[in-house]
């Protein structure tokens, strides 16, 4: 009895303390980015800690949003986040559910075939030629179609589906439910935390991705936000373009940081709402109810 009290009092205390300290260390880089993004040009260049903006100003955000193609870039990024994530979830579930059923034929071979695609890659040239054949070059679809085929996510999803008690599914089958019905009525509601996880992975992938833009899209009106921002931040190199006195000042530090915030904003807003799906017992509770 004495043992139990010690654990129930001291252990949580230690956990709270350790986690708070850790959170403080871990979150600092983000705080730094946030406060520099709201700082003036000079303050942003000051070395040292930046816990809060000493001379609060919106300048960097105004300047960033003033660039051409920023808004179209944002729209394109939102498009790929929404459509891309929806498609990824669809493809992932449709591949993972059959493969998670114990009696599905040729399971091992098919899983291996998927695994292969995670490890081997044809390289830049054949990929480019493929997108050309499919007429996906310079379209927004090139952002969402290829990335929907993600073996890693399918394999993770399979393992989540497998953790659903077989008894639940068998019971439904005995009641005469067919596979699709079982999927929608039982399996998916039970899998919300894992769907949210995969959805988050996909959202963040689509926020950060620019390689597909770099390789397959050259029309600036179809650029994604990440690529537009990268271009703004890369200082023009060696050869100044004309002999004009166009001494463009380098993008201020605050602009770089504002770009980070602007790019990640959609997920920053969404995340707290998604957290509720990770709470204990969500899964079983939803079936009971």
């Amino acid at each position, binding site marked *: 009895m004495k043992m139990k009290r010690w654990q129930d009092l001291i252990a949580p205390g230690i956990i709270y303390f350790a986690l708070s300290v850790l959170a403080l260390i871990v979150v600092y880089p983000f705080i730094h980015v946030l406060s520099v993004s709201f700082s003036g040009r000079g303050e942003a260049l000051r*070395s040292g800690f930046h816990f809060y903006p000493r001379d609060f100003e919106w300048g960097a955000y105004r300047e960033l949003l003033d*660039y051409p193609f920023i808004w179209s870039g944002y729209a394109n990024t939102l498009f790929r986040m929404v459509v891309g994530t929806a498609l990824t979830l669809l493809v992932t579930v449709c591949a993972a559910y059959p493969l998670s059923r114990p009696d599905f034929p040729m399971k091992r071979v098919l899983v291996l075939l998927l695994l292969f695609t995670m490890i081997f890659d044809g390289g830049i*040239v054949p990929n480019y030629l493929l997108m050309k054949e499919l007429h996906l070059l310079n379209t927004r679809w090139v952002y969402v179609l290829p990335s929907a085929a993600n073996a890693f996510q399918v394999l993770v999803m399979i393992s989540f589906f497998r953790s659903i008690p077989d008894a639940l599914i068998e019971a439904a089958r005995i009641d005469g439910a067919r596979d699709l019905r079982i999927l929608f009525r039982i399996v998916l509601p039970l899998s919300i935390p894992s769907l949210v996880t995969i959805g988050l992975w996909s959202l963040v992938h689509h926020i950060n991705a620019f390689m597909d833009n770099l390789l397959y899209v050259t029309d600036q009106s179809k650029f994604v936000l990440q690529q537009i921002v990268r271009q703004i931040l890369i200082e023009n190199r060696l*050869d100044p373009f004309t*002999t004009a006195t166009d001494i463009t000042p380098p993008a201020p530090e605050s602009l770089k940081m504002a770009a980070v915030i602007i790019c990640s904003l959609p997920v920053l807003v969404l995340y707290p709402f998604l957290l509720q799906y990770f709470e204990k017992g969500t899964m079983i509770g939803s079936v009971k109810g």
Partner: protein
Amino acid sequence: MNKRIKFVSAVFLAVSIAASLLTGCNSGADTASPGTSTGESPAAKSKPVEITWGIHFQAAGVVNDSEIQKWLEQKFNVKIKPVKVTDASIASGEVPDIFMLGDPANVAAYQNQGVLMSIDPNMLKEKMPEYYTDIEKKSELFQTVTIDNKLWAIPMFIDLKPYDLGMLWRKDWLDKVGIGKVPETLDEFEKAVYAFAQKDPDGNGVKDTYGLTGTATSTWSSGFYSIFGAFGVEPTMWMERNGQIVNGSIMPETKEALAKLRQWYADGVIDPEFITDTQDSYRKKLYNNRIGVIEEQISKGALPESSTVKEMQALNPDAKLVFAKNPKGPGGDGSWDWGVKSNFIVIGSKVQDQPEKLEKLFEILRAESSDEETINMTSLGVKGTHWDFAESGAASGATKFIPGFEKQEQRDQLGIRLFSLGNITTQAYRDKYSNPALNEAIKATSSAPRWTDALLFSSLPSDGKYKKDLTSLMQKYFAQIISGEIPLSDFDTFVAEWKAKGGDELTKEANDMYQNQFKK
């Protein structure tokens, strides 16, 4: 005057846009545009040649059917398909008819892939006479892109380089430590940086300042360019000594420079963090009162409106900066110097079977080189609408962009820059449109033309195999020698290792190339 031009060009642009929308109505626009080149009327009626045009390589992406594109199509009776050259598109066999490359190594790589057309120098002479007279004076540039005795690119040149390096000093620190004259010699330089490190120039009573820092993370060389320069060498550059080509990484003078830097480090004059510093971070150290002098590009440090000066003022309004020449040492003064080379224009291999297209390309090239209107339209836009001379009412000199078009990205939307070919312009044009203040600063502070790479950065056959690794090797040894981690005598170990790991082979190739192509 100004207003009229603005009006005329606005009308002109409107007309040309309308004209290209209503295809077939070209003749109407022709009469409305006074600047259209004359004597092309038969060509203007023929079917437009289709040109796949690789947009300026610094532009992020294509903007289709921009105003400038339409203007060019109209003027030259061509149909332009703007494309962005990427490694992927080229490797997949999509080679534009005309595009730009950055340096001789790129040209060599593309040539090796068989995607370029060789250019007849006589054609250049015949079709671009104005430009040819200029580039002829820099004929060594042709050698940098001559492979198998054929020319593979049209070289471009630049005389007054805004990106040449000089020294940017904290003037207020110099004053504080009692040095009235901005250091000119290496000895004076040494005195100043020692004083910065030891005499508390920021007056905070704490010993937290250094003289200078460097960068060990540069992609091409060693950092401390001006110090090596004072000893007459530049690591990684090929240098000529008595008719022989030697690499700057392994010369005896290099060891002398290292001995000096090593001494400075030991005496606390060089910031120990030079190992992790980049150009960005050493600027930041200057702004934050940590060091008193940096190597800076002239255009970024010499004028009151230069970006580094502006940033310094933003953080540290009381600080004063002064721009000066590189210090003069036993080997003279010098720094890293890219030489007169600029970018290169190349033509896609498929054009060789299309003489008509080639003809057209040269017509455009000539206009982009010597026709003021075409150059301005492709690189600046319309005068009065997009740009104007910095001094109001001036007819030459520095130019500035009009609000709304100050950002490169804003100009991209209209196609300004996409079709510019940069430094293909003639000397006459440059003289008219350059900033006299900046030119003066370059002439006053640049060490050029003292030296550059003896092979003008041509690509050697085995560069791909060895160069990167040799540069890393040099950076590692130099950083350790300077920081005292290994003795100075290890420089000789480095030289032996450098030679054994491909350096000897490169040296031989460099000498062969020099004998065959560059020796005067």
